[in-house]
């Protein structure tokens, strides 16, 4: 067999197939990738440096911008880390609200994923549907928090505004709608023979290496390992709610898609339960004047399950009114670099974008 010539292909930073703004440098032989290298930094905004310049509360406006498609887990994780340092109790009602916000955030992120996963395979109709429908969730967010994308809603001590009963009704209505719509999506995506052909056996994460490589979230559950921060280390009121953590075997795009499909259902169910069980009471344990709020010295690590996997915040305080160091580690940090570089060789170049969407690579989260 004649060895085909190796060519170099740059996927990105300006490329419709790339998720966000990053670059994958590929060595290809024909249509097959031989070597892949990720280049990031196109979105480096120096968050961690900037947070050190802000005070404890101001920092949270920056944080949600870590990862655009799913800003809320960032807020929550930071809030939880700071609460741990400050020994601050969160009212139970606030915890329920947080759970609802988190799950709504997951839902809207799943819908973006539907669009991305289908769109990267050329099925644009699904993207038009799900991203269009995603606006209904954003409308809910807008009504609750005042912002569509960046909510800046969860902060240390609780949440910023209370929920109203009309909002709860709207949420339930939207959930019913989405449940119906998800059937439409699934009909177009999971029932589709071509999608199955594309997704099965592609982008396999090996089961024995998954945890070592730092795979988390749906990709890890896609190899059959039941791992979810919500059950491993329950936070807020997740231990009081009844939900399944779906897994699938195979570790390919198909398995990850199945996991997400089921998680979509679970999120809807969690939201319904949380709305039902939400107690009355305070929604916010007021922090002192933010300009003068001093968090006791110490270090804290908090992690949260986002749609792409666990997000961890390492927060260090030196006893002043500003964080001394905040380090965030999102799922994409490993997915977008190590894992991607490891599973891309041997794949067809047609599948790169497909795999990236399936892993949930989110460049702003990698370089921050």
């Amino acid at each position, binding site marked *: 067999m004649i060895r085909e010539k190796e060519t170099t292909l740059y996927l990105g930073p300006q*490329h419709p197939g790339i998720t966000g*703004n990053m670059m994958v440098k590929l060595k290809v032989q024909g249509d097959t990738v031989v070597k892949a290298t990720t280049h990031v930094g196109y*979105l*480096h*905004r*120096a968050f961690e440096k*900037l947070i050190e310049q802000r005070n404890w509360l101001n920092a949270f406006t920056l944080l949600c911008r870590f990862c655009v498609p799913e800003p809320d887990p960032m807020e929550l994780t930071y809030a939880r880390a700071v609460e741990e340092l400050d020994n601050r109790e969160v009212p139970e009602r606030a915890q329920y609200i947080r759970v609802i916000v988190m799950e709504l955030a997951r839902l809207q992120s799943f819908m973006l994923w539907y669009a991305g996963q289908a769109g990267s395979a050329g099925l644009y109709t699904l993207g038009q549907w799900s991203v*269009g429908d995603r*606006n209904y969730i954003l409308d809910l967010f807008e009504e609750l928090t005042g912002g*569509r994308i960046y909510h800046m809603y969860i902060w240390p001590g609780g949440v910023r505004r209370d929920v109203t009963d009309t909002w709860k009704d709207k949420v339930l209505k939207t959930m019913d709608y989405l449940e119906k719509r998800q059937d439409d999506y699934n009909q177009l995506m999971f029932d589709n023979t071509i999608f199955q052909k594309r997704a099965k056996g592609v982008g396999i994460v090996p089961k024995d290496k998954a945890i070592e490589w730092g795979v988390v979230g749906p990709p890890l559950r896609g190899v059959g390992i039941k791992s979810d921060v919500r059950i491993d280390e329950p936070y807020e009121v997740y231990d009081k709610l009844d939900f399944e953590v779906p897994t699938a075997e195979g570790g390919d795009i198909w398995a990850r898609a199945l996991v997400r499909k089921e998680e979509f259902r679970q999120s809807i169910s969690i939201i319904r339960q949380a709305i039902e069980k939400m107690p009355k009471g305070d929604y916010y344990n007021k922090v002192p004047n933010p300009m003068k709020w001093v968090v006791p010295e110490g270090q804290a690590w908090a992690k949260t399950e986002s749609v792409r996997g666990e997000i961890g915040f390492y927060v260090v305080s030196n006893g002043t009114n500003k964080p001394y160091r905040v380090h965030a580690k999102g799922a994409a940090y490993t997915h977008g670099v190590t894992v991607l570089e490891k599973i891309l060789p041997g794949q067809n170049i047609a599948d790169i974008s497909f795999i990236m969407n399936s892993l949930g690579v989110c460049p702003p989260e990698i370089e921050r």
Partner: protein
Amino acid sequence: MINDKDSQKIVDYIQNFARKQSLFVMAYGTGCGAIEIPATMTSRYDAERFGIRGAATPRQADVLLITGYLATKTLKRVIRVYEQMQEPKYVIGFGSCTINGGMYFDSYNTINALEQYIPVDVYINGCMPRPESVISGFVKLQELIQQGKADNGKKYRENLEWYRTNQKKIIKNWKMPDYNW
């Protein structure tokens, strides 16, 4: 040759009409504002009603959206993309970050004022601008095009020196082909 002013006007009108009604948007998500682009382009807001659609490569694009902050590393690519675009070309700056640095005003890695590096036709307010704002931005751009005011590429060509000086201030390792058209 058309010398008659009136007929020139008619030709201009038709040209501008076509230009404003068919805006191919460069698919380059330079910053976080890019998250509202899908929302704008998809069913709920449907920017295609205005003839706005994506273009995968700079050669085919008319409009470059700078969706928020620009890291210096991206700035270099944006300039490259911008220079590859064919005239007439337009630039829309999204949100606070392009106007005056936004929340990253003190970051060592993001630029503050976009029009220092490439000419900008329209700025949209917001962090990030929601789809309605984005569409308003496009509507404004259409107005400018119809009035013949949007002539971004010419401005860039004529002030290339000035732009280059500014660009080279930020981009330390300048290894790029010349802008020769």
